[in-house]
C-alpha cells in the first residue's frame, strides 16, 4: 500500500530449506507488492509449494528471512499469522465432518468474530454459491468445482488482504477450471487482494498473474510479467518451458 521504494507485502530474502538431503529452496528471494498477483510456476519438486507455504509459516525455513506486511514471520505467532493470511489448499481440504457454511466460517470463527455465519454466507455468494442452497450441505455432497469454490470462499471469508493458493484449480476439468479462474480473477481484483498461487500451468499463470516466478531445483530462474517473460526469457529453461507451453514470444 505504500509508495516506492517499499518492501513488498510479502518478501522472501535468501530463503533456503532442506528436507533431509534434498534441497527444496536454495536462496530464493521474491517480493510481492500490495494488490499484486504472482504465480509460482515449476515442475513437481521445484520448490514452489514450499515457497508458498513460507508465507504462512507452514514451511519452517532453514535460513534467510520471510516478511509478511513488513514483519518477520519467524517471530510471529504462526497461528495468528495463518488467521490473517487466506489459504486454499490443493484439492480444497474441506473438513468433511463440517457443513459447507461451517467450513467457510472457520477463520472468522477462529477469530471469535460474532458475525462469522454472515461473513461465511457473504463469501459463498462471492464465489457464486447460494448459501441457502449450499450452506447446510456436507462437502461430499458437492461437485469438485463446488468444493473448490467453497475452499476459495473459506480463504476469503475473514476478508484477508493476502491469499495463498496451492494449485487451486489443478484437479478440475477444463470448463469448470476456466469458469473458476475467471470468477476468482474478478473477485480478487474487486477485493484488492494480494495473491500468490502455485501452478504448473503457464497458461493459467499468464491468465491470472501480474508476474510469474519460474522455479527450478529450488531456485528462481526468472520473475517477470507474462510479456517480459515471453519476450525475453532469462534462461534456456524458461525458453524451453515457454516453447513446451506454446507460448513463444510473438
Amino acid at each position, binding site marked *: 500500500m505504500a509508495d516506492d521504494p517499499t518492501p513488498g507485502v510479502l518478501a522472501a530474502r535468501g530463503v533456503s530449506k532442506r528436507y533431509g538431503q534434498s534441497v527444496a529452496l536454495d536462496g530464493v528471494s521474491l517480493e510481492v507488492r500490495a494488490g499484486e498477483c504472482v504465480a509460482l510456476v515449476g515442475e513437481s519438486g521445484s520448490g514452489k509449494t514450499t515457497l508458498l*507455504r513460507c508465507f*504462512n509459516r*507452514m514451511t519452517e525455513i532453514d535460513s534467510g528471512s520471510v516478511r509478511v506486511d513488513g514483519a518477520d514471520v519467524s517471530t510471529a505467532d504462526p*497461528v*495468528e*499469522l*495463518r*488467521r490473517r493470511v487466506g*489459504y486454499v*489448499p*490443493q*484439492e*480444497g*481440504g*474441506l*473438513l*468433511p*465432518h*463440517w*457443513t459447507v457454511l461451517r467450513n467457510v466460517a*472457520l*477463520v472468522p470463527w*477462529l477469530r471469535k468474530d460474532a458475525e462469522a455465519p454472515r461473513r461465511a454466507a457473504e463469501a459463498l455468494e462471492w464465489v457464486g454459491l447460494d448459501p441457502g442452497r449450499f450452506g447446510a450441505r*456436507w*462437502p*461430499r455432497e458437492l461437485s469438485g468445482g463446488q468444493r473448490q469454490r467453497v475452499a476459495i470462499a*473459506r*480463504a476469503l471469508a475473514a476478508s484477508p488482504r493476502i491469499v495463498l493458493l496451492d494449485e487451486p484449480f489443478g484437479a478440475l476439468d477444463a470448463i469448470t477450471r476456466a469458469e473458476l479462474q475467471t470468477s476468482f480473477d474478478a473477485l480478487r481484483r474487486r477485493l484488492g487482494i494480494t495473491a500468490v498461487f502455485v501452478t504448473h500451468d503457464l497458461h493459467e499463470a499468464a491468465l491470472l498473474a501480474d508476474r510469474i516466478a519460474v522455479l527450478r531445483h529450488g531456485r528462481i530462474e526468472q520473475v517477470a510479467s507474462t510479456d517480459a517473460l515471453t519476450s525475453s526469457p532469462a534462461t534456456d529453461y524458461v525458453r524451453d518451458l515457454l516453447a513446451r507451453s506454446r507460448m513463444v514470444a510473438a
Partner: protein
Amino acid sequence: MKIRLSSPRPLSPDRRGKGECFIPGLTSARRADAYARVREGGLRAVVAAISIAFLLPLLLSRPSHAQQQPPSSSRTVVIASKPFGESYLLAEMFAQVLEARGIRVDRRMGLGATEIAFGALRTGAIDVYPEYTGTGLTAILHEEPRGDAGAVFGRVSREFEARWGVHWLPPLGFENTYAIAVRKETARRYRLKTLSDLARASPQLTAGLTPDFIGRPDGLPGLTKAYGLRPRAVRSLVQAVKYRALAEGAVDVVDGYSTDGMLAKYDLAVLEDDRGFFPPYQAAAMVGPRLWREQPRAVAELARLSGRLDVATMRQLNRRLEVDGEPVGKVAADALREMGLLRGDSAPRASAGRAVADDGSFAGYVWARRGELMRNVMRHLLLVLVSLLAAVAVAVPAGVALERARPTAAEAAIRGAGVLQTIPSIALLAFMIPLLGIGVAPALVALWLYSLYPIIRNTYSGVRDAGPEAVQAARALGMSPGQVLRHVRLPLAAPLIMAGIRTAAVITVGTATLAAFIGAGGLGDPIVAGLALTDTRMILSGAIPAALLALLVDALLGLCERRVTPGGLR
C-alpha cells in the same frame, strides 16, 4: 456325548502346574490389530455413551457375593474349591458340616487353579479348601514326589505350616491318584491285576491316554521307565471320549483318576500300582492361618471328616455327581448323613449344585434358576462395564497423547499394552492375589488390563491417520494444535475409537467368565461349575447368556459407533 468347552480334564485334581486352564475368549484378544474399521467421525456421542454406561452400574442389583465382614466372633468361614467335581463335592461337605453346627459359611467354588486357590488361602482371602498332598508337594513346594503317603503328608504339613502358617487337617481317607484302567474282560483275558502284569501284556494292547498324561514326566514316560510298559500303540484321546473309546474296544488301556466316577460307571478294572510309581495324592482339608488361629471350633468340626471317606465311597459319590448328574448339595448331604455328621432333617442350602427340581428341558432348567441367572448377568455386566470404563478413561487419553510422541516410542508403548494380552489370565490373577485378594477387585483389574490394547491401538491409529488433508488445511487456516485435535482429529477418529471400545467390550464379555476362577461371580460361575460337574445344561446356562450378552453389547456399541460418526461421513 458331553460338551466340553475346554481342555479335557475338569474332573480331576489339577496337577498340571502353571497357567493351564480354561480361558474363555482370550485368544481372540491377541489379534487386536485386525479390528481397525476405518470410518471416521464426532466425539460427543462417545462421551455420551460412556456417561450412560457410568450410570448403569447404579441400576444393578446388589452383587451376590458382596461380603460385609461380620463381627470377628462369628466371622463367616470362606470355603473354596478348585474347578473340578470332586473339589466341589468336598468343599460342599465342609460347608454343610459347618452350617449344621450354626457356623456361617461363604462358598467360593471353582477357584481357577492351584495357584489361585492356594494364593487365596495363604493371604486369607479364603479359609479352607480341599487339596491333595501330592499337589501340595509338586505344584506348590515344587519338590520331586518321593516317599509313601505318610511321608508326603508329613512333609507338606511341616513345610506349609513353617512357610505360610497353613495347616493340613488329617487326610480325609482316600487318595485320588492316577489310575490305569482296562475293561474287566481284558483284565480276565490277560490276567491283569497290577501294572507289572500290564507291562507284560502291553505289546498286545493299545493305550488311549490324555495328551497331558502322555507328556508329563510322572505320566507315560515315567511309567514306561518304571514298569517297562510298551503298548502296541498309544493314541492321544481327550477326557470326553476316552472312556467311551475304551468301552467300545477302540483302545484297551486308559489313564484315569482313582476316584473317577467313570470307573464306577463303566465297571472298569483299575490296575494296582505295585511298584508305587504314582505319587500319593491324599485328599485333605487345607486351613488358612486366620481360621486356625481364630476359630478352632470350626477347625475341629472340619476335622470330623478326617479318615471318613474311602476310595470306593468317593468313587460312588463322584459317580452320582458327574455321571448321574445329581446336585452337589444333595450328594454332599447324603454322604454326611451316612457318616452321621448331618441329622436327617437338616436340608442342605442351595449352592453351586443342581439343587432345583426341573422338568428336564433346558428352558425349564433356566427358568427354575432365573433369579440366580439374573444375578449372574448383572454381576457380569458390572464387571464388564466398570473395567471397560476404566480402560476407556485411560486408553483413550493415552492413545491421543501417544500421537504426539515419536512414532517409535508410541509403537513401543502400544506393543507394551499388547504384551499384557499375552499374559495367561490365571497367571495374572494368581499374581494379583497378594495385592487384591480374591473376588471382584482382581477380576476388574485383570479385565481392565486386557481391554486396554484394542482401545489404545485404535485411538492412536485413528487420531494419527485422521483426514490428513483436513488436518493440513485446518493448521494452515490457523487452528492451534489443540483445536486441530479437538475439532478435526478426534471427531474424524471417533468411529475408529468407538470400534476399539466395541472390540474391547466384546472381548471383555467373554473374558469376564474367567472372573469365576477368582471368586468374582458372573456368568463364568455356571460355566466353571458345569465343566467341573460335567453338566452340559449348567455350562450352557452360563455360556448362552454370555454369548447373547456379547451380541447385545456389540449391537449397542455398534449403534454408538454410528452415532459418533459425523454426519458428513455417514
